[in-house]
């Protein structure tokens, strides 16, 4: 299965919600309110099912998923 880069996923989520698709890779996505918790849940499930990121640890620190840069780090570590 070919997966698109994680930044494109975030950008298409923004576009789906009528938000400007331009985003700095260090800009907060979720804590800023740019995307809501439903989007966050979608993203998390995609991280697990399509990018092989293991979020199973009940105490996983979720705050490291708030920017595209952080997401890219996470995805590349899982690849």
């Amino acid at each position, binding site marked *: 299965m070919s997966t698109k880069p994680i930044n494109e996923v975030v950008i*298409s*989520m923004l576009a789906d919600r009528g938000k400007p698709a331009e985003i700095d890779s260090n800009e907060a996505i*979720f804590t800023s309110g740019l995307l809501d918790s439903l989007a966050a*849940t979608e993203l998390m*499930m995609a991280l697990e099912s399509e990018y092989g990121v293991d979020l199973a640890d009940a*105490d996983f620190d979720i705050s490291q998923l708030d920017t595209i840069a952080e997401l890219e780090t996470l995805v590349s570590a899982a690849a």
Partner: protein
Amino acid sequence: MRKNFNIAVDFSEIARKNPEKLAIKAGKFEISFGDLAVLARKIASALQPNLNTKRVGILGSRSIPAYAGILGAAWAGATYVPLNMKWPAERLITLLNDLELDALIVDASGAKLLTPEVLEHAPELILRSDDAAEVPGSIAFSEIPGVAPETPAVLTEDELGYIVFTSGSTGMPKGVMVSCGSLKRYLDETEKWMGLTQADRIAEAHDITFDLSIHNMFLAWREGSSLHLMTALDMMAPQAFIRKHDITVWMSVPTIVNNMRRANKLSGGLLPTLRLSIFCGEPLAMPTVDAWASAAPNSTIENIYGPTECTVVCTRQRLTNPPLITPKRGILAIGQAYENFEIAICGEDGAPLPDGETGEIALASPQLSNGYFKAPEQTDKAFRMIDGKRWYYTGDLGYRDENGILHHMGRTDNQVKMKGNRIELEEVETHLRRVCNTELATVVAWPFIDGTPQGLVGFTTAKDKDEATIRKEMMATLPEYMVPSRILLRDEMPRNINDKIDRKALLAELNAPTMETPSAEPEKVLV
């Protein structure tokens, strides 16, 4: 007899007696009752000389500044009006015009929504949190020179505490006006079964525009418990949040639990710190209850029911062994009414039905709200005087069983509740028709899981626009959660016997196995 009904009074008393106590924690920030009182009093001092309509808007996320704004508005003697961050600019502008706010309070996220276009319709006085970007003409909290008295402004029980918006069938949301007296009566009844203490740590999973936030905030402020605000990111892993912050009290819509279940995040014994879990806003299906009861073995589970129009909550059912289930739906019953409520089950003619028969749930109580802001017709339709008593007709169907337990059986109208958001399908249709420039457009809720709608699907005969364009144009006037995830184009609409668009036929089409499935699966949503 209490003389000051200001909704900030309870908070002010805790702040005086126990100023060091943690009031709110949000991410890396936290604030004590004492410090939050000072911040609220500063905000109140900036508001007080400017009060005219006595309405103050709060545009913010789940943040300490937004809560300080709520408290400051109340402290000054104003009605606080939370404005939804998900509203598109056009809707925000319409409501700003209607509301005639004396002031607007914004946090960092709210300030971002104040485009020049929106600002033109905003009140002159704008207070912003210190971490917010500069907004022309606004005053940062720290720049406010004065501080209001230690005691909140004196209000009677009839004055408005807050206005919360909920979906309306006319195409615009309705503002439910709740008096200080109704909120006090609600809190008096609710604290009896919550048993909160200063040791409790309450998670806040919902926005300030949702009235579950009112429950958490004002009960915490009455008892001196701490509030732990969850960011959108924390919502991705609520179980991690509960564990990290030793949360003792949880309240949310069941969808959040179902998301955790779907992601395999709920294992037995995972959440030992919880002592009380409350579910509200959607039918509570038994598999959800069972999963939570196993994950939170030390927690009591309560299912509560209440329209915003009756001040947050009016019936309650504790999870018992065996559980009290609504047989036809496989959900927990909504239980028994608060002591200050009378419940009637009404037939189509409005006359009361005997126990066991299903009809519309009507509620009478001193806890009822004052009705809808600037919408007397809608108010008169929903709130009716019968033999000198004021009743609210909920639009919810239910029946009372032989033991006096109330069971919820769905809606009388085309209102649905998705993830706690109340949506009038007519409201969405109004926008779909306008965008498509045709009356031949309708919206259904679909698909259903455990009897709970998961999404909206629109149908239209419009020829000149494709699905993406229609959705994009709807997004300009509706919050994203109200825009159908799929718009299906049809040559014609099926009609029922009354020549109305036949929603049942459309639903049957969606349920047919050959139908191309607009899936609720996340990977498809992402594409």
